[in-house]
């Protein structure tokens, strides 16, 4: 576990420098561009969320956009209530149009900002926790997890579209007030907002890395290898799976809140099939084994989309499809796999030299040669 830790730290530091320094400098600190870049960062967070459950524990969540969408709706509900404060009864406009008489009870908590921020993380966690327990206690794996998560997402999306009076329906929740944080009215076209998004991304990734590099992360990788064998060592596999599934949902919730802030509306398309599969694509392009690489995948693909879709219009979507096929066929481990492969080749070369020096493999080395470490 120690060796991977160094690699992680270097990767993370490079990534932080890229996000904090290089990206704003690339666009000359222009507010308009920074807004788009903040959007890419939010999508980077959700790509990392996909990789956390998929790359670490082998749980492919095709409904990742569900928890992402929940995060965005939570934020939108808060901002909508704020925007509707001057209306009679503080009712959002779409409720008035659909003749809803009083504010539904589940809207009430979103008047408070702290509750909203908590809900943006906790509601996805609770949804994922319940779904996770339901699935993983029954030892559901692989394709079946993919189908269940996908189906639940589509069901919730349909419900949101259907309950127009409560959710804004097909149009989503629009005309939002700006967020107010500690008296700062958040301007999403500014450098501070960009750094807010970058801060969220880096914090979330750091927490994710701690999880992956702990023994819990090791157990998760073992589960991906052979879940049945892990059980015979006394680990409660379903609990581990549920926890990583929920952690990934929490990340997606954060991403959704950021995304809603950037785009200034929430829409049922945030929970759509296309976006959800796109998230998986981003993670696959970056490399699902590393959440940092997956985040880069999310940022990179969307950046490319931002640049290239102006140039090529529809052809961009075509290119995206081709990229996707190519990644699955030729780079199943993503760009991260390329780097890791190169690193392994290097260390194999140096390792071989060391082994020759040590002589025949059967000889047992004296105690204390190998790296020492501490436990708590």
């Amino acid at each position, binding site marked *: 576990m120690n060796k991977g830790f160094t690699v992680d730290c270097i990767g993370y530091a490079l990534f932080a420098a890229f996000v904090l320094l290089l990206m704003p400098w690339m666009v000359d600190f222009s507010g308009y561009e920074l807004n788009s870049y903040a959007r890419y960062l939010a999508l980077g967070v959700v790509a990392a969320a996909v990789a956390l459950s998929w790359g670490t524990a082998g749980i*492919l969540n*095709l409904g990742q956009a569900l928890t992402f969408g929940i995060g965005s709706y939570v934020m939108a509900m808060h901002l909508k209530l704020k925007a509707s404060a001057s209306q009679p009864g503080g009712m959002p406009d779409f409720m008035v149009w659909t003749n809803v008489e009083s504010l539904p009870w589940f809207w009430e908590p979103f008047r408070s900002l702290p509750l909203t921020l908590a809900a943006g993380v906790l509601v996805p966690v609770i949804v994922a926790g319940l779904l996770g327990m*339901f*699935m993983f206690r*029954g030892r*559901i794996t*692989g*394709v*079946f997890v*993919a*189908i*269940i998560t*996908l*189906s*639940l997402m*589509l*069901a919730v999306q*349909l*419900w949101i*579209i*259907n309950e127009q009076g409560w959710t804004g329906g097909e149009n989503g929740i629009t005309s939002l007030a700006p967020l107010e944080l500690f008296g700062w009215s958040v301007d999403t076209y500014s450098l501070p907002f960009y750094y807010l998004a970058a801060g969220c991304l880096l914090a979330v990734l750091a927490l994710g890395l701690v999880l992956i590099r702990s023994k819990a992360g090791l157990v998760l990788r073992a589960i991906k290898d052979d879940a049945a064998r892990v059980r015979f060592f006394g680990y409660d596999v379903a609990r581990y799976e549920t926890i990583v599934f929920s952690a990934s949902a929490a990340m997606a919730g954060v991403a959704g809140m950021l995304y809603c802030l950037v785009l200034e509306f929430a829409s049922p398309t945030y929970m759509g*099939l*296309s976006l959800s*599969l796109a998230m*998986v*694509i981003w993670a*696959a392009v970056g490399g699902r084994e590393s959440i940092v690489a997956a985040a880069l995948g999310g940022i990179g693909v969307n950046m490319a989309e931002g640049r290239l879709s102006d140039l090529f219009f*529809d*052809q961009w*979507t*075509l290119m*995206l*499809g*081709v*990229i*996707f*096929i190519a990644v*699955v*066929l030729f780079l*199943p481990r993503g760009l991260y796999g390329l780097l890791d492969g190169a690193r392994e080749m290097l260390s194999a070369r140096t390792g071989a030299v060391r082994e020759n020096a040590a002589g025949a493999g059967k000889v047992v080395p004296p105690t204390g040669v190998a790296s020492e470490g501490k436990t708590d």
Partner: protein
Amino acid sequence: MESLFNEAFIGLSLASILLMVALGLAIIYGTMGVINLAHGQFVMLGAYGAWLLQTTFGLSLLVAIPVVFVVVALIGLGIERTIVHRLYRRPLDTILATWGIGIVIEQLVRAGFGSDSRYVARPAFLEDGFLFLGAYVSSYRLFIILFSLAMLAATWYLLFRTEFGTKLRAVIQNTEISRCYGISAKRVYALTFAYGAGLAAVAGALVTPLVSVTPTMGTSFVVDAFLVVIVGGVGSVLGSAASALMIGEASAWLSFLSSETTGRILILLGVIVLIRFRPQGLFPDTVRR
């Protein structure tokens, strides 16, 4: 009484369309472990084929069916040989790759024919309907039901009564040993994929008189068909038929009793519960592996 029969009939026609889309998907998943998310695009290609033949050559839908079957089967063959054959038994990867294939097909069609909705006329002699037990029965819907039953029978015959089917089942059970007996797994798989694609195209051509033809029409089909395959039991042809019937009838009745959306939501939730407690499907094919 009339309305009951009416709902049952509509459910049956929904089920038969689902079945035709699901049949190809089920065979492909059952034989090579490939979840083909581009299957919906094969349906869409079939629909466009029917439209193209009707508008440019004035060909009837019935003539278009064999043509789109062959053409899309060939397209499927090409895709299998270039991409899909690298991904056997890696279902999660195939989800991603075939989704990419679907995007590409959809964009190519959009580039070629635009995004407008297209319509196809049903054959003149199936234009009307008749009253049966007091309910209106559309001749065309009845035709779809009968046609899909015929395709089910043909597929069953192909799998269990022909030499190709025997080879296919041999390959599924043990690729290595089949190879010793001179069966080319490669060829068998490629032909199976092509057949599945062709079936999807036929389904696409058949639905054209009922829905508008657009480049994006495939996605809605593939999700439903996929649910049918999983609920029916992987690789089980008759299981797919039974689950298509269940899901088709359920959606007809639920939309009759509440609303279409509520019906769909309930079906999705029902499928989730089913998969949780019977991941092997309702009618698993016990012979497999």
